[in-house]
């Protein structure tokens, strides 16, 4: 279970109203059944939000809506000052260039090498891998500690390594918003911790705003109770007796609605029976 003391010391600061990078306003979407019913929340610059909820509650759907991969039936979605819910697909490509996404199963292009995957956005602009792009690829692969894998194909990597390459691909252009779809799903605890460390590193070193979907409460609370120490070059718990802004809040979905939005401390103190059961 989470380190409660560390979590209580790690408090997010109150967000400014005008620096939101992502905003859902009364968003609803249905397929055969309604999945999201009037969901509203905001993500502010430099902050992280963790989406929790049982399977099928629409967590991944929120990420796809935030990228404009799906259109809501009603409501507005604003990403970096653009209302994407009313934009044409052709116009969305420009907005998406400032948003990175790590897919649940990595979604690496299996016919390309790791280097070509990571440099995909940059190759689109230049048409080929230049020396500068190669150096940039090595730099982000070093960030995820996979520098030597650049000539390999995704099939030669383990599941955890593929997730890390997917993170490298998402951050190579330093997008303003990062969306993580269950980045630790199906991985062993050690590899999961490595991935979460990368997420925390990205949050604390580059101050990238992020929306993270996870089923693993342990990962969520690790994010809320740890920070990345540049001196030690690793993720460490917030020291006892010290208050530190970890820029991380939680959102819990149930039956198409947001039933909780707040800090880790507020979550742990919640008396809602469903949340108590969910956390137990």
């Amino acid at each position, binding site marked *: 279970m989470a380190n409660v003391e560390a979590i209580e010391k790690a408090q997010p600061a109150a967000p400014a109203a005008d620096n939101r990078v992502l905003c859902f306003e009364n968003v609803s979407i249905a397929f055969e059944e309604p999945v999201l019913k009037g969901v509203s929340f905001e993500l502010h610059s430099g902050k992280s939000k963790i989406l929790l909820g049982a399977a099928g509650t629409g967590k991944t759907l929120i990420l*796809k809506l935030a*990228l404009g*991969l799906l259109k809501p039936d009603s409501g507005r979605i604003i990403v970096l000052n653009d209302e994407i819910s009313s934009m044409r*697909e*052709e116009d969305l*490509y*420009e907005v*998406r*260039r400032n*948003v*990175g*996404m790590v*897919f*649940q*199963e990595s*979604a*690496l*292009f*299996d016919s390309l090498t790791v280097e070509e995957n990571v440099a*995909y*956005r940059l190759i*689109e602009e230049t*048409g080929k891998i230049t020396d500068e792009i190669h150096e940039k690829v090595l730099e982000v692969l070093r960030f995820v500690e996979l520098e030597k894998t650049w000539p390999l194909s995704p099939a030669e990597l383990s599941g955890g390594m593929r997730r890390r390459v997917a993170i490298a*691909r998402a951050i190579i252009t330093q997008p303003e918003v990062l969306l993580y779809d269950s980045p630790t799903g199906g991985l062993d605890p050690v590899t999961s911790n490595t991935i979460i460390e990368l997420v925390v590193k990205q949050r604390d070193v580059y101050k990238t705003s992020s929306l993270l979907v996870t089923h693993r409460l342990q990962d969520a609370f690790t994010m809320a109770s740890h920070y990345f120490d540049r001196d030690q070059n690793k993720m460490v718990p917030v020291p006892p007796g010290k208050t530190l802004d970890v820029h991380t809040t939680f959102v819990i979905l149930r039956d198409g609605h947001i039933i909780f939005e707040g800090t880790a401390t507020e979550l742990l103190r919640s008396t809602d029976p469903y949340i108590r059961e969910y956390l137990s």
Partner: protein
Amino acid sequence: MPVFSPVEIAKTQVEGVQDYARLAWRSISNLFGHPRYFADTVMQADLIGVGSLPIVVLTGFFTGAVLALQTSNTLEQFGSLSLTGQLVSFSMVRELGPVLTGLMVAGRNASGMASELGSMKVTEQIDAMRAMGVDPTKKLVTPRVIACTVMLFFLSIISDLVGLAGGWTIAFFMLGLDSNQYWTTAYQSLKFGDVFMGLSKPVVFGFLIASIGCFYGLSAKGGTQGVGRATTQAMVAASVLIVVSDLFITKLLMGLIPS
């Protein structure tokens, strides 16, 4: 709730046609915007054109040969065996060359495109591409459509030629016809309308093959089973549409360019 709803089925079919029309239109309109993926188009041209060459040559040669053999009996009854070259030439250039080449390329490439794009769809690679600001219709569909349309045009010409060579093989070695007579009648009997018809069809067929292959691939859902279904549907739809559109193109061109 009814188990079988004709309205729902009709609605799904109409939506499918609408989605296909939209994709087909975008595959063409993308040519007038940026970016253009020239390297991808050349790579697809190599895969479709050079890759399909062996089956097209084999099919064309043996079709021309069997055509000469089958018709020789009838022609002999009327004492017109010397017209074998003309008959093979007419049939291959106007009809069999483009249609059989189209069917062969559809079997090989419409299914290949559907399975490749379908696999990318079910493993979220298409979504990843869109998420990175790249339009899959520009990157994946337009290069395939252009490459297939251009290459089918040239493959049909090759098929016509080797078909005539197949007919000559039978005419010369089995029917004892003079080589010069065979090639002269084959060449002289062809008019502008015949060649125009023979070269118009592969352009339409090539467009249909690639756009249908890509459409079914990008519509795939339901894991590996869905990819398999998309592959089969793409090949069947492309083959049927080639045969059906062939009738309409023939009728249209016969009206526009009378012999």
